[in-house]
């Protein structure tokens, strides 16, 4: 993998790292995992799922009909598993590097309060 995964891809793969999920399940899982920051809609989700299936990162698992609604489940493929593991390792190294740098700051040099998101650039 040459470039980092984009955030929606990362969260979809993370959601599918557990048991197989259908579209609605993935939307709920992504919202929960991202702390509510990423609210995907079906039109966006299914475009993403198509790309990930094409790339061989996820696979269709099974289908079932619940209350007259078709649900198709998806699971992470072996390639998707390896891709997510590599990305997770890359992020872990980033976090460790940032944590180490922050740990080197003296209390006086450390920011007292977090900067608000979207503040003055």
């Amino acid at each position, binding site marked *: 993998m040459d470039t980092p995964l984009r955030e929606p*891809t990362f969260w979809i793969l993370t959601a599918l790292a557990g048991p197989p999920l259908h579209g609605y399940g993935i939307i709920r899982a992504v919202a929960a995992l991202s702390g509510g920051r990423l609210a995907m809609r079906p039109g966006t989700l299914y475009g993403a799922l198509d790309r990930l299936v094409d790339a061989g990162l996820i696979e269709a698992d099974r289908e079932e009909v619940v209350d007259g609604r078709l649900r198709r489940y998806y699971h992470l493929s072996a390639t998707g598993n390896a891709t997510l593991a590599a990305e997770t390792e890359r992020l872990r190294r980033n976090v460790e590097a940032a944590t180490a740098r922050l740990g080197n700051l003296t209390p006086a040099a450390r920011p007292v309060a977090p900067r608000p998101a979207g503040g003055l650039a």
Partner: protein
Amino acid sequence: MRDLERRYRHLLRAYPAGYRQARGAEIVGTYLDLAGPDRRWPSILEVADVVAGGGRERLRAAGAADLIPGVRLAGLLSYLTATALAGFWATAEVVTTSGVWGSPAFGPFATTGIVIWAGWLLAAVAYAVGPARWVRAAIGLALLLTAAVVPVAALFELPRPYLFVLLPQATLGVLALAGPSRTARRQRLVPLAIALAAALIAVGVLSGESAWFYRFSYGGAFLPEAGAALLLTAVLAATVLSLRGDARGLWALLVLLTPIGLLALYPLTENIAPVVGAGYADFRVITGTTAATFVLGGVTLAAALAIRARSSAAADTPASPVHQRCPTCGR
């Protein structure tokens, strides 16, 4: 079948027929899962989501999925151009004088255009300090002011900028709605910096000029240069991105042909007038050239899409691994 399900299925016509047949039931099921039990109509956001998803799928089927990131790039370049022009004309509103003969003014400013340019500069400030939704709201407001100044100025008999200026500005503004998104903090200051640079150029070029000159001569004086700068930037971006196997620069260039043509409208009409047998660039020539610019821009883009669809049907191989692209936009 419930009313809501029928309506979702109806909306799904935005998708290609083959895709609808394969995935329609699954997508409708997910929308129904997300909808509350008492819902009878899809929400506006859901309608937009279906239409956008269907559009993306149609482009993907045509082998032109990178058109959407191309439009975003065109939107960003349009936004920067619109901001630069706003900085230039806002300065012109201030530094031009009434001249010896006097000319109608709007308070201390040359025309009501100051309201428009202030709106565009406000959008640049929003880009620097606010989230993407602020920027789009500010661009929407600036667009509204750009359109509203024509009837308002006519109603109250106030001076306003020439239509040669307002038309490309509005077209750039519509494209700009697709452009700006979250970027690094330093990059957010770029539009303001460009507006400031354009303002400094305007101070040098227009200081002491008559407001008559500002109102009636600038269509042929500065807009073609802005169009040439935009064209050069778009060609450069298309070349660099193409060398990396990324076609979005080419799509952006095709999308930008229309606003570039509108920025060059004044010299175009001057050259077309004798060709069509008109003594000068009258209203008929100007409106005809404007319509031709829009039609030619649309036809060029449609032809490129058709060519791409044909070639992608022959060999459908993605330029880069799919998992490296954003699943929401394909970029």
